[in-house]
C-alpha cells in the first residue's frame, strides 16, 4: 500500500523557499564582482552564506518560519545591513504581481548557478556551485517549480500573498526600531565566530559526503531502541543502596533546557500557515521530538498535551506520514495513558507494516513483502512491560520470538530476546515453564527444570550471540551491561544445556562484571559503522539558528564563565562529534552500573565517583529516570556518610527537579530516609508509618516490584526489632527470607540473614544468632559483598562477645580483621558501631586494664560519639557517652566524666521525646 512505497523527495516550493532564493540572489548575484553590493566585508558576506546554509538545513520545527521570523533572524545576521536585506526582500515580493512574475523569477534564479562545465573560474568571482548545498537547494527549487501545474502556481501565488500579509505588519515595526539599534558590530569577534562556523560547516560537509544519502526512516529504529535501552537501564539499575550525594548545579541547567524545548513547542501551536518543510526536515524534527519525549517525557515541564496537539496538526497536514502515530505512541507511553498508547501503536503498525522507519535490516532480505509485524509484537511487549503487565508482555514477546524465527528476522529476534530477559529478570515471574520450552528444542527437556535466572542467562547469551553476529553494536553493548548486571546479582550455576565443560563456579566474579561493563562501553565507542547514520540531519543548523536569538555583544571568553553558555557549547560540541543520544545514554548507563556494582561490592568512594562522573558528563543527555537514579544514589551516600541534615537539604533540591516526574523514585527515597532517621531517633511510630507507606508504593500484583516489597518488609522487621518485639521481627524476617528464596534474590538473602542474626543478638540468644551470621558471611563471600561481609563480621563478633567475656579476644580479632573495610568504606553508623564495640571488647577483656591504656578506648569512643552526633542516632550515642563517662570515672577524670554524663542525658531525653524531631522533619 501507500505506506510501503513511500519515499523521500517531498520538496514543494513554498513562499519561505522563495524568500531563501531571493536572499541567495543577493548572496551570489550573477554579476561579476568580488564583493556584491550591500556587503561591507567578506566576513559579513560569509555570515549570510552560513545563515542561508542553516535555514536550508535546519529542522527545528515542522513549519517553515514565517516572514516575520525570517526578518527577525535577518536582523540578527545582517546587523547594519539587515534593514537593507529586509527592504529588498519585501520589495521583491511585492514585485511579484502575477503568476507570470513567478515564472520569470525562477528563470532568473537559473542565472546565479555556475555552469557545470566551465572549468575556468576567475579569482574573485562568486559562483554558486551547482553541487554545493546551496546550489542543490536552488536546483531543487527550480525543478519543483517547473513541475508545478498551473493550479500549483496559482496556489503558490496565493500563499505568497498570505505570507506577505502576515509579514508586513512586523516589517514596518522593524523599520521603526532599526534606527535605534545602532552599530553593534565587533569585527574581531565576528571573524572568530564565523571562523568557528566555517569549521563547523566543513565538518558538516564531511559528514554529508561520508554518508552519501541520508537514510530516510531512521527515527523509529532509534526510538524503539531507546525504549529497549531505557528499560534495560531500569532493569539494570533499580537496586538502590544506601548512599549519599552532593548537590549539583547541573540540575537547574537541565530544567532550563526542558523549558526551552517545551516553549518552542508552544510556539508552533499558534501557527496557522500551512507550509511544511521538506520531508527530510520533518523526519529530523520528529526524531528530535522523540528524543525530547524520551529525555523529558515524564516531567511535567514537558507538556504531553502540547506535543499531542501539534502531532495532531501534523497528521492533518500529512496523513501519510505514519511515523506521527509512533511519536504519539511514545508520547502517550510517557504520559502513562495505556489505552491511547496501545491504540496508536497498533495503528502505526497497521499502516506502516513496520517497514517505515526500520533500517535495521536491509530490505533486500526478501521478507519485506510480508511486512515486519514482529517488530510490532516487540514494541507491544515492551509496552505491556512498561505498564506492568508482565504476563501479557511475556505472551506477546513469545509470539514475537516465534514470528521473527519464522521470518528469520534475526535482528528483531536479538532485540526480542534481550527484552525478554529484561522482563524475566525484572518481574520475577514464577511460572514461565512453557516459554523457553517451545523456543529452543535442544533445551526443551531441561527447560522446565531451569530457574528463571537460568532462563535469563540463556536468553541473554542468545541475544548477545545474535547481536554480535549482526553487528548491532548498541544492542551488544546493552546486552553486555545486562550481562554484567546479571553476573552481579546472581550466582552462576552450571547449566545442563551448556554441557560438562561449563564452569562450576558458585559465586559472582567482580572481574567478569567489570569485563562486561568495559566490553559494553568499549563497543559503544566504536559505534561509527552503525550509528553515524543516526545523526539528526540539520540539528546543527537548528542549534545555530537558535543561537541567533541570544545577544551578540558578549565576547567569547566570557562565555566560559556563564554556565548556560557553556552548556550550549557542549551541545554544540555534541552535535559536531555527533554522538547519538542513545549511545551517550548507554555509556552513561555503564557508569551508573559501575556505581551500583561498587555499591554492592562495598566501595563507597568508587560508587560515588562513578555516579559523579555520570551526573557530570551524561546528566544532560540522560533520560529523566536515569538522572533521577544518579541523584538518588548521591543523596543516599550523603545520608550515610554526612548525616541526615545534608541529605535532606540535597533531597529538597532533587525534589524540585524530579517530583513532577511520574512514578518518581524520589518519594521512595524520602520515605527511606525518613524511616532511617525515625529509627535512629527512636520515633518508632513514625518509623512504622513510613514503613507502611513504603509498602503501599509497591504494586499488589504477584512478582512485580519485588525490590520494593523486599525493602518494605526488611524495614518492617527492623522497626519491630527496634520496638523490641523480637519474635514478630523474626517472623517477618523468616517469611522475607522465603520470598527471597522463591524469587531468587540472592543478595537480599544475605542481608536478611544478617538481620536475623541481629534479631537473635538483640534478643539475647547469641547462640541462635551465630549460624545466621555465619551463613550471611558465606553468602557475602560468594557474591563478593565486602562491605556487607564486614558488617556481618561485626555482628558475628558481637555475638561472640554476647556469649561471654571470655570470647572477647576472639571477637576483637574478628573485628580487627574487618576494620579496614569498615573504616574505609562503611557509613557513619557502621563505623560508630565498630568503635563502640571495640571499646566494649577492651572493657570486657579481663586482660586489658583501662588505667594503663585509656586512650585506646577513649579515642574509639570519641570517634563513635562524633559520628553518631551527626547521624542523630540517640540510642548508640547514649551508649557511647555512657561508656565514656564510666571510663572517665574509672580514671578519675571527673570533668570529662560530667561532660560525658551530660551528653548521655541529652541523648536519653531526645530518645524519649522524639516528637519535636518529627516536627522539623515533616
Amino acid at each position, binding site marked *: 500500500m501507500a505506506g510501503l512505497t513511500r519515499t523521500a523527495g517531498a520538496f514543494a516550493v513554498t513562499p519561505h523557499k522563495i524568500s531563501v532564493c531571493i536572499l541567495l540572489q543577493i548572496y551570489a548575484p550573477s554579476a561579476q564582482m568580488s564583493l556584491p553590493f550591500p556587503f561591507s566585508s567578506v566576513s559579513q558576506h560569509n555570515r549570510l552564506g552560513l545563515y542561508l546554509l542553516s535555514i536550508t538545513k535546519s529542522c527545528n520545527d515542522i513549519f517553515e518560519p514565517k516572514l516575520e521570523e525570517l526578518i527577525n533572524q535577518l536582523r540578527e545576521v545582517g546587523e547594519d545591513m539587515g534593514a537593507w536585506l529586509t527592504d529588498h526582500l519585501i520589495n521583491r515580493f511585492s514585485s511579484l504581481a502575477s503568476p507570470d512574475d513567478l515564472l520569470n523569477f525562477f528563470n532568473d534564479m537559473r542565472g546565479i548557478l555556475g555552469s557545470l562545465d566551465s572549468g575556468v573560474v576567475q579569482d574573485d568571482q562568486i559562483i554558486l556551485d551547482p553541487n554545493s548545498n546551496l546550489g542543490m537547494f536552488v536546483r531543487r527549487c527550480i525543478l519543483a517549480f517547473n513541475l508545478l501545474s498551473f493550479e500549483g502556481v496559482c*496556489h503558490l501565488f496565493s500563499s505568497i500573498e498570505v505570507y506577505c500579509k502576515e509579514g508586513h505588519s512586523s516589517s514596518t515595526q522593524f523599520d521603526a526600531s532599526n534606527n535605534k539599534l545602532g552599530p553593534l558590530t565587533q569585527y574581531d569577534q565576528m571573524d572568530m565566530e564565523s571562523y568557528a562556523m566555517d569549521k563547523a560547516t566543513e565538518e558538516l560537509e564531511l559528514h554529508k559526503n561520508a554518508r552519501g544519502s541520508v537514510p530516510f526512516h531512521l527515527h523509529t529504529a532509534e526510538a524503539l531502541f531507546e525504549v529497549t535501552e531505557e528499560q534495560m537501564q531500569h532493569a539494570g539499575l533499580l537496586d538502590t543502596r544506601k548512599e549519599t550525594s552532593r548537590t549539583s548545579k547541573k540540575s537547574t541547567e537541565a530544567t532550563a533546557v526542558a523549558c526551552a524545548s517545551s516553549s518552542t513547542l508552544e510556539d508552533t501551536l499558534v501557527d496557522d500557515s500551512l507550509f511544511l518543510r521538506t520531508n527530510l526536515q520533518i523526519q529530523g524534527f520528529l526524531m528530535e521530538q522523540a528524543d525530547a519525549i524520551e529525555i523529558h517525557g515524564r516531567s511535567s515541564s514537558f507538556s504531553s498535551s502540547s506535543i499531542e496537539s501539534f502531532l495532531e496538526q501534523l497528521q492533518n497536514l500529512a496523513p501519510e506520514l505514519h511515523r506521527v502515530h509512533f511519536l504519539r505512541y511514545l508520547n502517550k507511553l510517557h504520559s502513562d495513558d495505556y489505552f491511547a498508547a496501545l491504540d496508536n501503536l497498533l*495503528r502505526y503498525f497497521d*499502516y506502516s507494516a513496520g*517497514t517505515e522507519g526500520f533500517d535495521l535490516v536491509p530490505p533486500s532480505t526478501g521478507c519485506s513483502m510480508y511486512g515486519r*509485524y514482529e517488530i510490532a509484537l516487540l514494541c507491544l511487549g515492551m509496552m505491556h512491560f512498561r505498564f506492568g503487565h508482565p504476563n501479557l508482555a511475556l505472551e506477546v514477546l513469545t509470539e514475537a520470538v516465534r514470528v521473527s524465527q519464522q521470518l528469520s528476522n534475526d535482528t528483531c529476534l536479538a532485540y526480542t530476546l534481550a527484552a525478554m530477559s529484561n522482563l524475566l529478570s525484572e518481574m520475577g515471574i514464577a511460572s514461565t515453564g512453557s516459554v523457553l520450552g517451545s523456543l529452543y528444542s535442544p533445551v526443551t527437556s531441561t527447560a522446565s527444570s531451569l530457574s528463571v535466572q537460568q532462563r535469563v542467562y540463556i536468553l541473554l547469551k542468545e541475544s548477545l550471540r545474535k547481536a554480535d553476529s549482526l553487528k548491532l553494536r548498541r544492542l551488544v553493548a546493552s546486552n553486555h551491561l545486562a550481562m554484567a548486571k546479571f553476573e552481579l546479582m546472581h550466582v552462576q550455576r552450571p547449566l545442563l544445556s551448556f554441557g560438562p565443560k561449563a564452569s562450576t563456579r558458585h559465586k559472582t566474579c567482580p572481574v567478569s562484571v567489570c569485563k562486561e561493563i568495559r566490553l559494553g562501553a568499549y563497543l559503544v565507542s566504536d559505534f561509527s559503522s552503525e550509528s553515524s547514520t543516526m545523526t539528526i540531519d540539520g540539528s546543527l543548523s537548528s542549534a545555530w539558528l537558535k543561537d541567533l536569538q541570544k545577544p551578540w555583544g558578549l565576547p567569547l571568553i566570557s562565555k566560559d564563565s556563564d554556565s548556560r553558555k557553556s552548556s550550549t557549547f557542549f551541545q554544540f560540541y555534541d552535535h559536531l562529534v555527533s554522538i547519538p543520544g542513545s549511545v551517550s545514554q548507554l555509556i552513561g548507563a555503564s557508569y551508573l552500573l559501575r556505581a551500583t556494582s561498587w555499591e554492592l561490592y562495598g566501595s563507597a568512594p568508587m560508587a560515588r565517583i562513578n555516579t559523579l562522573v555520570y551526573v557530570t558528563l551524561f546528566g544532560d543527555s540522560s533520560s529523566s529516570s536515569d538522572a533521577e537514579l544518579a541523584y538518588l544514589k548521591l543523596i543516599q551516600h550523603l545520608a550515610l556518610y554526612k548525616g541526615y541534615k545534608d541529605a535532606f537539604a540535597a533531597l529538597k533540591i532533587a525534589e524540585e527537579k524530579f517530583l513532577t516526574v511520574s512514578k518518581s523514585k524520589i518519594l521512595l527515597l524520602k520515605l527511606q530516609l525518613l524511616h532511617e532517621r525515625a529509627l535512629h531517633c527512636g520515633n518508632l511510630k513514625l518509623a512504622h508509618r513510613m514503613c507502611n507507606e513504603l509498602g503501599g508504593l509497591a504494586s499488589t500484583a504477584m512478582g512485580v516490584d519485588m525490590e520494593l516489597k523486599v525493602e518494605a518488609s526488611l524495614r518492617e522487621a527492623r522497626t519491630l526489632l527496634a520496638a523490641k518485639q523480637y519474635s514478630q521481627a523474626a517472623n517477618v524476617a523468616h517469611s522475607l527470607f522465603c520470598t527471597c528464596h522463591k524469587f531468587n534474590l540472592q543478595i537480599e538473602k544475605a542481608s536478611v540473614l544478617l538481620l536475623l542474626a541481629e534479631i537473635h543478638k538483640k534478643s539475647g540468644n547469641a547462640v541462635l544468632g551465630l549460624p545466621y551470621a555465619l551463613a550471611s558471611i558465606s553468602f557475602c563471600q560468594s557474591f563478593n559483598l565486602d562491605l556487607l561481609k564486614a558488617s556481618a563480621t561485626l555482628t558475628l563478633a558481637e555475638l561472640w562477645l554476647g556469649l561471654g567475656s571470655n570470647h572477647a579476644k576472639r571477637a576483637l580479632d574478628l573485628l580487627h580483621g574487618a576494620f579496614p573495610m569498615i573504616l574505609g568504606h562503611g557509613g557513619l553508623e557502621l563505623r560508630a558501631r565498630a568503635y563502640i564495640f571495640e571499646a566494649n571488647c577492651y572493657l570486657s577483656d579481663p586482660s586489658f586494664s583501662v588505667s594503663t591504656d585509656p586512650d585506646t578506648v577513649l579515642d574509639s569512643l570519641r570517634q563513635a560519639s562524633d559520628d553518631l552526633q551527626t547521624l542523630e542516632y540517640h540510642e548508640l550515642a547514649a551508649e557511647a557517652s555512657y561508656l565514656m563517662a564510666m571510663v572517665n570515672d574509672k580514671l578519675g577524670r571527673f570533668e570529662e566524666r560530667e561532660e560525658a554524663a551530660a551528653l548521655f542525658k541529652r541523648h536519653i531525653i531526645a530518645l524519649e521525646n522524639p516528637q519535636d524531631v518529627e516536627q522539623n522533619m515533616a
Partner: protein
Amino acid sequence: MVSKETCRNELRVAIRQLSDRCLYSAAKWAGEQLVGIEQDPSNSTPSNTRFQRGSSSIRRRFSTNESISTPQPSVGFLQAATPLPEEDEAIDGDLYLLAKAYFDNREYRRASHVLRDQMSKKSVFLRCYALYLAGEKRKEEEMIELEGPLGKSDAINRELVSLERELSALRRTGGIDSFGLYLYGVVLKEKGNESLARASLVESVNSYPWNWSAWSELQSLCTSIEILNSLNLNNHWMKEFFLGYAYQELRMHTESLAKYSYLQGIFSFSNYIQAQTAKAQYSLREFDQVEIMFEGLLRNDPYRVEDMDLYSNVLYAKEACAALSYLAHKVFLTDKYRPESCCIIGNYYSLKGQHEKAVMYFRRALKLNKKYLSAWTLMGHEYVEMKNTPAAIDAYRRAVDINPCDYRAWYGLGQAYEMMGMPFYALHYFRKSIFFLPNDSRLWIAMAKCYQTEQLYMLEEAIKCYKRAVNSTDSEGIALNQLAKLHQKLGRNEEAAFYFEKDLGRMDAEGLEGPNMFEALVFLATHFKTHKKFEEAEVYCTRLLDYSGPEKEKAKSLLRGIRMAQTGFPTMDLEHFPI
C-alpha cells in the same frame, strides 16, 4: 395514525418548497415517498396504475412480513399537525429566478452574487447555500490539486468561516428560517461544533419536518443511543423515518425494522422503505428475503444505483455469478462513475477470483468517495485473498479509522494477523470487533479458533468463547461440535457428552448428516458404555448401524461389548433388550 391524505398533501407542498430552494436531494426523497403512498384515487393516470401494479405483485410475493397489515404505532400518536409554512414571497423576485437558474446550471458563485443584496429569508438561504456549495466544490478541487506525497494537505471549505458568522448573526436576530437553520447546522458540523449543530438541526426539523437532508445530517451526529434519546423532537411522521434510519445506523436492527414496518402501512410502495428494510434484513443475515426485496426494487425502479452494492453483497454471498454480472452490467450502463457501481463490479470480479481487477474497481470507488467504508473493507478482503497481508491490514485500518464501529474491518484485521501467525496480537482485534457486535456467533468462533491455535493453546478461553457463540444462535453448529471436542480433549467426558448430545439434537432437527454425526454417535456410545448406561449406549449404536463404513464396524463391536457386559450381570432386566 396519520391519514394518507395528510401525508400526501404535506409532501406535495414540501416538494415544491424544497425544489424551489434548490434542496434537490431532499425533494427527490420527498417525491419518492409521495409516490410511495397508495394511489390517490382522485387523479389516477394509466401510467400511475401500471407502476403500482408492478409493485403490488412484488408485495404478493413478498408476504413474509406479516406485520405490514397490522402496523403498531410505537409512539403515542398525538401528532400536532405541523402547519405548512406559507411562502413568505408569493411571487419570487426576478433576481431570485435568475439566481435559481444559475444555481441549476451549477454556477454557484454567480448565483450567490446575484442575490447579494436580497434580504428575504428565502434569498438569504439560497445565497448562503450557493456559497457553501461553491466552497465545497473548490475544496474538492483543491484536495486533488494539493495532494502531496504525504497525503492530502487539509483543504477546507473557505466559505465556512464567513457563512458561520453570517448565519449565527441571522439566528440571533431571528432573520432565519428552518432552511437557514439546516444550513447553519451543516456549517457547524463541518466546523466540528457538534452539539451546536445538533441543536440547530433539531430546531430546523421541528419547524419544518419535511427536509430529509436535515434529518440525515442529524442522524450522522447521533453516534450513540444516548445522544439520540436526548434529542427533543416534535412528533411527526417524518420522525419515524428518522428513527428508523438512526436505529439502523446504531445497529439496532429489530427496532428499525419495527419502525419501517409501521411506516409501510402508509407508504406501502415506497422504494426507500423497502431498501431500508432490506438493509436491516441484510444485517440480520436474512439473505433470501433480501434478495427477493431487491429483485422487486429493481423491477420497480430499474435504474436505481443506490443501495445496489448491498444487493451485490447478497449475490456474492449466494455466489450467484450470473445475477451479479447482470446487475453489474446494468448499473454500469446507468452510471459507471458511482462508487456503488464500482463496488458491484469489484464484487463481481472478486467472485470470479480475479482479485487484481477487483482491487482496481474498489480503488476507483474510493477515488470517487474517499470515505466509502465498505470499499475499504472489501478491498481488505481482496488483499487477503491475494495474500498481500500488509496491504490488507492497511485497507482495513483505514476503514476502522473512518468508522471505528465497523466490526467487519476489525474482524478482518484480526484475521489478517492470525494468518501471519500472530494469534495473540490478533486477539486484540477480535475483541474489538466483538465489542461492537456481541451477538454474532461467527466472531466468537473466530476468536475461539484464535485461542485454539497451537501457538496459544489456551483451551479454557476457547471454551468460553464457544459458549458465547452457542448462546448467540450459532447457525452452522461449529461451536457445539468444538465445545464437545475440546471437553473431550481436556478429559471432561460428562461435559463432552452433554455437548455431543446437543449437537446431535441440532443435526437431527436440521436433518444433517456427516462426519460430525458419526463422531458424536461414536463418542456417546462409548461414553455411555463406559458409564454402564447400556440403554443409551445401545440407542446410539443402533443409530450408527444405519450408516456404512468403519463406524458401522465400530458400532457392531461396541454392541457386542455391551451384550457381553450385560450378560456378565445376569440380574439385568432383560425386557429392555430390543431383540
